[in-house]
């Protein structure tokens, strides 16, 4: 773990110490950087515009996914309490522990999730909402692949594609 303190030590390519402010040779390119050659101001402005569009798209994907999952989760919770009035009182005989112990039943496969949704079970609806939430980062990486291709940045597009492949693979390996 000592590598953390010596970024230059173990890295073949080395590192540099802070030089203080002043040297800001590529400040104008800013975070829209990513090209290995200098761009003309017009090209840089165009690229900036493209990057901005991508950021807006990514942020939209996230917000829609997040809102949708919250709505579905809330609906599921509402259904659950509507079906089980014993859960509802602030003081009552039913402890939450019945629902959070190891053996408590809830859907944990696509098949059981389908059954649960078909029955209109609140817990199944909550799980579906959580599923939407889990998919938002995956969708975000997928949008990343498209956006790096759109910026004609092949190395980063490949990097993002690898991440997407591992994500999809992780779900397939799990048997979802």
């Amino acid at each position, binding site marked *: 773990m000592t*590598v953390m*303190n010596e*970024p230059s030590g*173990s*890295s073949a*390519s*080395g*590192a*540099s*110490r*802070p*030089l203080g402010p002043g*040297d*800001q040779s590529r*400040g104008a390119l*800013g975070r829209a950087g990513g090209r*290995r050659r200098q761009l003309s101001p017009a090209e840089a402005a165009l690229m900036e515009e493209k990057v901005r569009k991508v*950021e807006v798209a990514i942020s939209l994907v*996230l917000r829609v996914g*997040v809102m949708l*999952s*919250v709505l579905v989760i809330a609906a599921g*919770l509402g259904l*659950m*309490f509507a079906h089980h009035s014993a859960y509802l009182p*602030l*003081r*009552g*005989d*039913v*402890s*939450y522990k019945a*629902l*959070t*112990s*190891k053996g408590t039943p*809830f859907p944990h*496969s696509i098949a059981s999730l389908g059954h649960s949704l078909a029955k209109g079970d609140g*817990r199944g609806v*909550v*799980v579906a*909402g*959580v599923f939407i*939430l*889990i*998919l*938002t*980062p*995956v969708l975000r*990486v997928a949008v*990343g692949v498209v956006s790096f291709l759109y910026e004609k940045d092949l*190395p980063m597009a490949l*990097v993002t594609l*690898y991440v997407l492949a*591992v*994500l999809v693979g*992780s779900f397939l*390996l799990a*048997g*979802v």
Partner: protein
Amino acid sequence: MGLMTPLDFVVSLALISVAAGVLGSLIGLGGGVVIVPVLTLLYHVDIRLAIGASIVSVIATSSGAAAAYVRERMTNLRAGMFLEIATTTGAVSGAYLTTLLPARSLFIFFGLVLAYSSFATFRRRNVAAPLTVSNDRIANYFDLHGSYYDPAEEREIPYKVVGIKPGLGLMYVAGLVSALLGIGSGALKVPAMDSAMHLPMKVSSATSNFMIGVTAAASAGVYFMRGQIDPIIAAPVAAGVLLGATVGAKVLGRVTSKTVRLVFVVVLVVISLEMLQKGLLP
């Protein structure tokens, strides 16, 4: 005092989750770092269900905070995506190790990881100036450098990135930890970016926020199939954390890097001690 009913549980856990979301998105930790101890120590929920809920909270923090961050342009998407190569790979391997390890050793491991992270961050509490030159070949090839507008300092701050190789190594470990413990492993990601790769602290926090969601998603499928995502725990956690994370994301812009680091250190020390105690004195 009567029993705590399911409604009491959902309401109280949702309120705690709002706080976890604010804190998590501010320091880049993902809220799991609060949710796991709250569920195990306060509600006495089984650690494996707590980890499943925490994976959900991590994704909620990440997605909730991200919309605001990306708009504020603090996240270094390129560096984050590049480092995800290592974290997602680590997460997939870690998700299969978790069944082999007993809960007590997980607690001790978690405690030690957090203690080390807090130490590494505290040592850098006064460092604010970013690098202006980098000869890291990987960082230059993929152009992982960037700049961000800092509302607290009211100026655009350009920075260079170094130490990609140690960064990748730490990120692999972070992915493993994430899958093993259900924390977003921001506890490791933030110091890796702040200390080893010299990204500015706020960029490290925002980029960690982006990454933790992707890393957590890589193990979420396994947790779901294994029945670790209990809906009555996941629902209040997801809703509360999402709300809190959007608030925390807005706060990050206005505070200084030093404040972010110090809050980060305090949170890590407290939770590290709790986890070590749980692991050593059951």
